[in-house]
C-alpha cells in the first residue's frame, strides 16, 4: 500500500512537469525544422517536416538581414547596457532595501511607474528628447534608454532578494571598519550571485530582443540591431517565412546559450547547495 502511494506521488510529481517540459521543447524543434524548408513547402503546410534540408536558408538569411554588422551592434548594446544595469541596479537595490532615508518611497514610486507605462507612450517623447540632445542615429542612441528601461525590474528583484539576507554579515564587516561601498561589493555582492544571474539573463534577453526603440531611433544601416534585421524578410505584399525563421533561430541562439551554459550551471550549483536531492 505504501509502495503504491509512493509510486502515485512520483507519478504526480513527475508526469505533469514532464508534459510541460515537452511542450516547451516543441517550439524550438518546430523553429529548427521549419527554418530548413523551402517557402513553397512552408506555405503548403507549416506543420509538416521538410522533405529536404535546405541549410542554405541560414546563409541567405544571414546575408539578407545583414547579420554580420547587426550582431556586433546588438552585442555592443547588450553588453554595455547589461554591465551598467547590473552595477546600478545592485547599488540601488541594496541601498533601498537596507537603509531607510528620506525620498525612498518616491524612488520606489517612480521606478514602479516607469515599469508600468506602455512603451508606445514613450517612443515619441524619447525620440524628441534624443533629437534635442543630438543622440539620434548614433552608437549610443539606445544604451541610455535600455539602461533606464531595465533598471526598475532589476532593482525590485535585487531589493526583494537582499531583504532575505541577514544583516549579520555586514555588521561583522563594519565592526572591522569596512566602508559602505566595500561592504556592498565584497560582502553582499557575492551572496547575491543567484539574483544577479537572473538579472543578467532577463536584461540581456530584453535588450537583445528590443525592437520599438531600435526601430525609430536608428536609421543608419551600420547601427541597426538584430531585431530590425528580422524585418528584412517582409516586402510590401509577401513575407519569406523560412528565411525569417532561419534568422530567428540564429537570433535566439545567444540568449539560449547564455541561459543554458551560464544560468543553468550556476543554479545547478546553488540549488545543490541549498536543497539536497
Amino acid at each position: 500500500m505504501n509502495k503504491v502511494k509512493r509510486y502515485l506521488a512520483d507519478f504526480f510529481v513527475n508526469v505533469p512537469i514532464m508534459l510541460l517540459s515537452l511542450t516547451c521543447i516543441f517550439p524550438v524543434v518546430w523553429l529548427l525544422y521549419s527554418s530548413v524548408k523551402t517557402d513553397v513547402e512552408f506555405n503548403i503546410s507549416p506543420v509538416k517536416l521538410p522533405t529536404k534540408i535546405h541549410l542554405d536558408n541560414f546563409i541567405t538569411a544571414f546575408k539578407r538581414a545583414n547579420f554580420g554588422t547587426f550582431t556586433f551592434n546588438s552585442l555592443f548594446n547588450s553588453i554595455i547596457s547589461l554591465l551598467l544595469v547590473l552595477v546600478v541596479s545592485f547599488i540601488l537595490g541594496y541601498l533601498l532595501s537596507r537603509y531607510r532615508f528620506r525620498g525612498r518611497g518616491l524612488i520606489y514610486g517612480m521606478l514602479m511607474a516607469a515599469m508600468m507605462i506602455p512603451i508606445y507612450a514613450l517612443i515619441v517623447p524619447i525620440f524628441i528628447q534624443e533629437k534635442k540632445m543630438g543622440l539620434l542615429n548614433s552608437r549610443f542612441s539606445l544604451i541610455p534608454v535600455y539602461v533606464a528601461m531595465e533598471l526598475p525590474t532589476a532593482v525590485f528583484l535585487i531589493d526583494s532578494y537582499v531583504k532575505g539576507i541577514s544583516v549579520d554579515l555586514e555588521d561583522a564587516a563594519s565592526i572591522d571598519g569596512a566602508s559602505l561601498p566595500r561592504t556592498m561589493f565584497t560582502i553582499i555582492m557575492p551572496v547575491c550571485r543567484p539574483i544577479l544571474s537572473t538579472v543578467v539573463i532577463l536584461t540581456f534577453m530584453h535588450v537583445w530582443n528590443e525592437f520599438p526603440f531600435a526601430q525609430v531611433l536608428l536609421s543608419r544601416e551600420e547601427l541597426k540591431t538584430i531585431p530590425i534585421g528580422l524585418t528584412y524578410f517582409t516586402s510590401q505584399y509577401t513575407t519569406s517565412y523560412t528565411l525569417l525563421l532561419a534568422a530567428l533561430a540564429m537570433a535566439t541562439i545567444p540568449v539560449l546559450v547564455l541561459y543554458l551554459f551560464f544560468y543553468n550551471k550556476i543554479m545547478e550549483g546553488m540549488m545543490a547547495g541549498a536543497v539536497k536531492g
Partner: protein
Amino acid sequence: MKVKSIKKTLAVMLSMAMMLSLAGCGDSSESQPVADEPAATAEPAADEAESLDEAAAEDTEAATGDTAGTGLSGSFSIFHFHEDEGAGTSKAFWTAANKFMEENPDVNIEFIFTDSDNYQEKLTTLMAGEELPNVWLSKGDMLPTFADAGVIQAADQYISADPDWADAYVDGAFADCTYDGTQWGVPFQMQANCIGVYNEAIFEECGIDGWPETWTELLDACEKIKAAGYTPIAMGNKDQWLAESAVFNTYAYKYIDQAWFDSLANNEGAKFTDEAFVRALAGFQDIAQYFNEDMNSINQDEMYALYYNKQAAMFFNGAWAVGTMISNCPEDVLASTHVGLMPAVEGEKGTKYDTAAGAGWNYMINSNLEGDDLTACLAFLKAVTTGEYADDALQQGFISSGKAENADTSTLDPLFAEYYELAATMNNCSIFDCVLPAEIGSGVLYADTQQLIAGTMTPEDMAAECQATLEANY
C-alpha cells in the same frame, strides 16, 4: 558569474554611469535647437551623424569627383519600404534606383529603409519629432495632415511642367494622392485590390462551367462546390484588412459608386447608413457562409495554403496574390488556376468591372527640399516610377502606375497576362482604407467587418457605428 572581474570594472562602469546621467540631465532640460529649423539643404539624419562618431560613413559625397553625363548633382534622403531583395515593385525600384545612381554619380541619395509593417510607426514618429526625411511614402489617409501642415510640396507643379513625365502615367494614377484639387504625390504602383482566383479543375469537377458572371451564378457555384466537400471561398482575415479591403470594398462598389464614396468622404450627404450600403453589408454577410469557418483566425498565407492544398476552390484577394501564386503555388494547382472579376449583383447598379484599385502609397516631397537637391530628387522620382521602371515592374508581375509602353507582354507569365488583360477592363474606384481617415478606414471598418462575417454584428449596427465614427472624424 565572475564576481572578481566585475569588481575590477566597477570603477569604470560607475564613472560611465555618472557621465551618462549628467549628460542626460544637462541636455534634456536645455533643449538645444539642433535641427529644429528645417533648413533648405539639411539632411536631417546625416546632421545627427556628423555630430557624433563615424561621420566618415557619408563617403559617397567626396568620392565622386567628376561630373558624368547628366550634370545632376545634389543630395536628398528617401524613406521607403522597398526591401533590397524583395519581389515585384521592390525589385523594379532597386533596378531603376541603381541605374539612376550609376548614371548620376554626383547625386547623393540616403536610403532609409523600414519594412512595410512598421513603416507607419516610424513615419509617425519622424513626423512628431520634426525629423521627416526629404522624400517619404504615404497613403492617402495621412495626406490631409501633411498637406494642411505645409510639410509637403505638391508634385503636380513639377510633373505637369515636364510633358514627357506627365504623359508617362496611366489614367487615374493620381486619384489616391489628390487632396483639395491638388495632386500632392508621385504614385508608383497600380493595384486592383480585389481579384477572384479560382481552381478550374475543382470548378469542372463540381459541374461549373467557367467563372460566374453574376452574383447568383456565384452563389450557385458556391453551393455546388460546398456540396462536393470543398470550401467554396477561402478567407484568411486574421489580420483584419483582407475581408474588408481586399473583398468587401469591391463588393460594395456593386451597390454604390465612386460619386457616392466621394460624397461620403467629403461629408457631402452620403452616409454609411444609406440603404444601398447596408444592402451591400447584408449581402456580404450572406456570402460569408461559403467561407472556411476559421476565416477570422487564419492569415493570408494560411488562406493561400487552403487553396494550394486543393481544399478551397477559390479566393478573392488583391492583385498581389497573382505574383504569390506564380512563385509559391504547386504546379498542378497553378496550371488550372485562373483569375476573374468579382461578379455584379443583379438589380444593383454596379458592374463586374467596378473594382477598388489604385496607387495606395505615394512618394511625398518635403517642402524643405529646393534647388539642386530638388531637381535631382525629381529626376530620381521620375526614374523610379515611369519608363523602364514600369516595364520592369510588369515583368516582375506588378502593374505600376507608369505606362509600360515598351514592355514585351509576350514573355509575361500566363496567369499574370490573364490578370493584365482583366485589369485593362476594370473601372478603378477608390480604396476605402487609402482615402478615409484611419480611424474609420483601418479602424472601425476592419474590426466590424470581422464581426459581420462572423455573424456577431448586424449590417445595421455596423453601418451605424461606421457612420458615428466617421462623423467624429470629419
